[in-house]
């Protein structure tokens, strides 16, 4: 589904990703862990097409197509979804209106029929049950005045409605208390399916107690330096990122920060 090869990217003239290679198949949940500054968020931003990230080498194929050549809206229509680490507040734009416009824009791009307001409402009701999100949030402006937990749940709710093939969760656990974390994880788990893949980017192992990954990768200094199953996350929790650095002396400086 997603094939990242030797990806190099820079931000503001600084090299951040330095040869990242990763393959994700349908149905798999991959966790990307790593210390601050390792390039975790850069990976999410590059995959979703944010401005300001310059890819200097490597390639990303999504279902066989060059993902990096596509506009952000085309990537969304192709089935890539990024749950933002910091969801943006958009005053004046109604949450439901926005979501329907987004879904219909994607459907239009894919040559599917747009949903009328009744059909959309029905879909939203179904997804609300999964997400346990209060429908009061739907009538407010996008993320405006939402608490940290509400913003993250709103991200997962959008994901539920848009039904992407690949969902990238960029530090979705940051700033959440344990109850909110469980709710978010529950939403994600409800959306797991044999044809949907997840890339869960996180600093802490905590989230992986609730979203069980098939693979765990350690990202350090712009590259994946260690891959394994979910037990790798536990090892990291126990030993810290310094443990990875010790195994790879070149990274010692990074890991100590």
């Amino acid at each position, binding site marked *: 589904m997603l094939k990242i090869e030797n990806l190099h990217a820079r931000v503001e003239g600084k090299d951040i990703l330095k040869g990242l290679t990763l393959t994700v198949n349908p149905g798999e949940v991959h966790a990307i862990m790593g210390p601050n500054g390792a390039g975790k968020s850069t990976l999410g931003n590059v995959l*979703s097409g944010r401005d300001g990230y310059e890819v200097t080498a490597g390639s990303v194929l999504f279902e066989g197509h060059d993902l990096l050549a596509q506009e952000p809206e085309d990537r969304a229509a192709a089935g890539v979804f990024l749950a933002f680490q910091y969801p943006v507040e958009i005053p004046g734009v109604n949450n439901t209106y926005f979501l329907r*416009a*987004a879904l219909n824009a994607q459907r239009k791009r894919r040559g599917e029929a747009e949903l009328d307001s009744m059909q959309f409402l029905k879909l939203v009701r179904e997804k609300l049950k999964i997400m346990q999100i209060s429908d009061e949030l739907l009538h407010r402006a996008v993320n405006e005045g939402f608490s940290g937990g509400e913003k993250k749940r709103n991200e997962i709710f959008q994901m539920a409605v848009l039904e992407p093939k690949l969902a990238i969760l960029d530090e979705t656990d940051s700033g959440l208390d344990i109850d909110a974390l469980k709710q978010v994880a529950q939403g994600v788990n409800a959306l797991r399916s044999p044809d949907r893949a997840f890339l869960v980017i996180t600093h802490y192992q905590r989230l992986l107690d609730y979203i069980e990954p098939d693979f765990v990768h350690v990202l350090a200094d712009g590259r994946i330096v260690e891959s394994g199953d979910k037990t790798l996350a536990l090892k990291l929790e126990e030993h810290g990122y310094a443990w990875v650095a010790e195994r790879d002396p070149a990274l010692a400086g990074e890991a100590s920060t």
Partner: protein
Amino acid sequence: MSQSPAPVPFIDALRDAADLRLPGSGLAWLDAARRENLEAFIAAGLPDTRAEAWKYTALRALGQRRFALGDAQATGHLVDPHALALPGIDGPRLVFVNGVFRADLSRLETLSQGLTLQPLSKVLQNDPEPLRFALSRHYREAGDAFARLNAALAGDGVVLRVAPGARIGKPVHLCFVGTPAQGDVAWHVRNVIEVGEGAELNLVEHHLATASHKHLGTLVSDIVVHDGAKLHHALLQNAGEESTLIRRGSVHLGAKAQAMMHVLEIGGTLVRHDLHAELRGDGARFDTRGVFVLRGRQHIDTQLSIRHQALNTASESIWRGVADERARGVFRGAIVVAEGADGSDASLNNKNLLLSPLAEIDTKPELEIYADEVKAAHGATVGQLDERALFYLRSRGLPRAEARALLTAAFCRAVFTALPNETLRDHFSDALLAHLP
């Protein structure tokens, strides 16, 4: 030997204007007022950008143009009455085509008790005396050029009175239509509107075009809202995209009188709107909500001035401007709280959005306070779309243009939430969205 200045075609075209037969010609006082205003206009010419009020709006190009003195065919143009309709507005209607009253398109049969609504041309024929004061004015400021021109040449317009205590339920629809004619026409409309003590009036002013034309229209509106009266005035300016429109409104408010204006400016290529309010009676309130959305090479200059002259008066002005492509917007909001207007509350907020690096908006809030215990706030900003928000919307699948339109509409939307007529509010939103490139 002094050199005579180069001839200005705009002025040149007025050479024979004094001999025009206009409605009301022959009334000695009106003839005199028209003549004096015409002479004053010709003597002073068009203001240049050295005049403070015209600093950001150059009239050189307009001065090079020659307009016909009115449109002799104005009553003959075919206009589809359905094109004039506004959703939710089905009350009395007064229609002017190229500045001339059109009985065939108007709706004056069933006027509510207490409402007098007539075209100026008819009032000048039948009973001009009550208008003597309003139409005998002399404009003295250099910036008043178009008011002088209007006073010299206006032969039609709206004369509207609401009797004291009358509450006019259905909105009164004033419709100004521009339509192509032989050559470029200059038309001038004069409106006199009075809302009697304790009365209530809903007014909808609509400027539109049947097809593209390059006419010049000037409108001067005098509005008086007497003690305890309420006026709501919604204005949709969607004039012809190549037309020039110059409007000047003055609103006088008595004690506890209230006026609320909603303005949406999207039409015209060169547009000037002067709006001056005087809060003359204790406890008067004047609120404005305005949006201008510009594209192409549109130029819109709004000059809002509000004068608090009595105790405990209040005004709140919320304006948004959007300029794309090479458009230019100007907003000046000047509030004076005069001596003695103690306890007054004035706020002015103008935010602007530039959608293109070649667009420009100049905003200038001014606040002068000479009274005590005054609450006053003003702020103005010029900015760009939030790139983070734009990316957020695009990452969810909205194409760039749609995301821009959504954010721009959101930027403007809050301004019209208080528009009382919901259908009209939706229409304003739709018109605004449709005008975004």
